[in-house]
């Protein structure tokens, strides 16, 4: 399990520059927002938490098809399937590797990008906390989507169509935490619900992803 994780991490960081792409995308989205809605700082401050969440979500989405497609194409997924590790473990490790290479860096740069959007003071803490708590759910749900579409050539658009509706609850609660936090309001309720979604998804969805992957490998 550890071996698989380190292998995936190493591949994620080294192969094909996928590692930096998500971050660069996040940066560009954040830079484009003021261009499209105007540089008015009060307005930017109000929408900053939402924009950061949306940008992180899209950056996450873009890197999803890398989770399984490469392994599928060169056949290592078939080898993994015959390994003593259960499929549920494989997909969980894959999701974890995706989170470490994509989700975690996004969480770390989000406060820096918050500066560009004039994020209010208490917002930095809550944007970071909500992303830290929410991005694992994005990775796990995304792994399910990637497992569904792994056998489909050029399945990228389909993957987005399948995964984005599944992201709705996470986005709602995550962005709500960030928004309330930035406005200096009470955050406990949405934070608890966000944590509930994340842990529920981590606990249950790998079974669905594994079932789907088994079907695809048949």
């Amino acid at each position, binding site marked *: 399990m550890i071996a698989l994780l380190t292998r995936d991490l190493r591949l994620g960081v080294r192969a094909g520059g996928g590692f930096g792409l998500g971050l660069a995308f996040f940066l560009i989205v954040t830079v484009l927002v003021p261009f499209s809605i105007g540089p008015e700082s009060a307005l930017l401050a109000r929408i900053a938490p939402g924009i950061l969440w949306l940008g992180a979500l899209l950056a996450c989405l873009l890197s999803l098809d890398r989770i399984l497609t490469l392994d599928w194409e060169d056949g290592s997924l078939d080898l993994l399937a015959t390994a003593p590790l259960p499929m549920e473990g494989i997909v969980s490790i894959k999701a974890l590797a995706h989170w470490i290479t994509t989700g975690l860096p996004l969480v770390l740069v989000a406060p820096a990008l918050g500066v560009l959007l004039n994020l209010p003071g208490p917002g930095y803490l809550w944007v970071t906390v909500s992303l830290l708590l929410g991005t694992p759910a994005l990775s796990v749900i995304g792994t*399910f989507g990637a497992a*569904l*579409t792994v*056998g*489909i050539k050029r*399945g990228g658009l*389909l993957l987005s*169509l*399948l995964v*984005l*509706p*599944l992201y*709705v*609850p996470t986005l*709602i*609660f995550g962005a*709500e935490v960030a928004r309330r936090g930035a406005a200096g309001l009470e955050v406990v*309720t*949405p934070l608890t*619900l966000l944590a509930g*979604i994340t842990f529920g998804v981590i606990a249950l*969805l790998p079974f*669905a992803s594994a*079932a*789907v992957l088994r*079907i*695809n490998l*048949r």
Partner: protein
Amino acid sequence: MASIWEYANPVKFIRTTDRVLPWLSAAAVVTLLVGLVWGFFFTPDDYRQGSTVKIIYLHVPAALMAINAWLMMLVASLIWIVRRHHVSALAARAAAPVGAVMTVIALVTGALWGQPMWGTWWEWDPRLTSFLILFLFYLGYMALWAAIEDDDTAADLTSILCLVGSVFAILSRYAVNFWNQGLHQGASVMRAGALAGDTEERVSNIFAVPLFVSMAGFALLFIALVFLRTQTEIRARRTRALMARERMG
């Protein structure tokens, strides 16, 4: 005693539905006509909403069927996963576009009704939003069916997507509730008090009876369409199999 599982046999299914379908279609047309004509022309105007209230005879039944179609797909998917009857998977596939159309009807009629009543075509109200999300789920489900070539793989993957999607659809439904308070009224036709016979709580019979007739009409229409489309799917698959066999031989 005949078991319901006999209809899992495609031949038996087609034979039975062939016999039922003309009657079912006729019944659907008649009940729809009665319900809609009665609703549109023979009910009084609401004292506050005027004649716009009559859009309820399209809006509520369509919304009802939009949700029930997904429930039916969920049940059919479960049957496919557990018992592997092909008719069941094909029925779920056949129901999806019908459900999606029902969702669109509910959204469009809702917008048309919302414009004069609330002064807006669209509002990010929880009910409206969750219906839009339901529509996205339908789109994703149909797109996945269309994208996969192997029939059994497609049936397996879409049925699991349907199960996972149902959970997330319910989650989204309550999440949007939390996110924004709405303009849309709560349940008013099937209220607990009304079912218990409290007349204060009830939609007046003048409006409710044609509404129930329209609901029955939409339900019959849905069943007839699903039967018809399932038959088409079965025949299309059989044709493909025959053509493949011819190519081989």
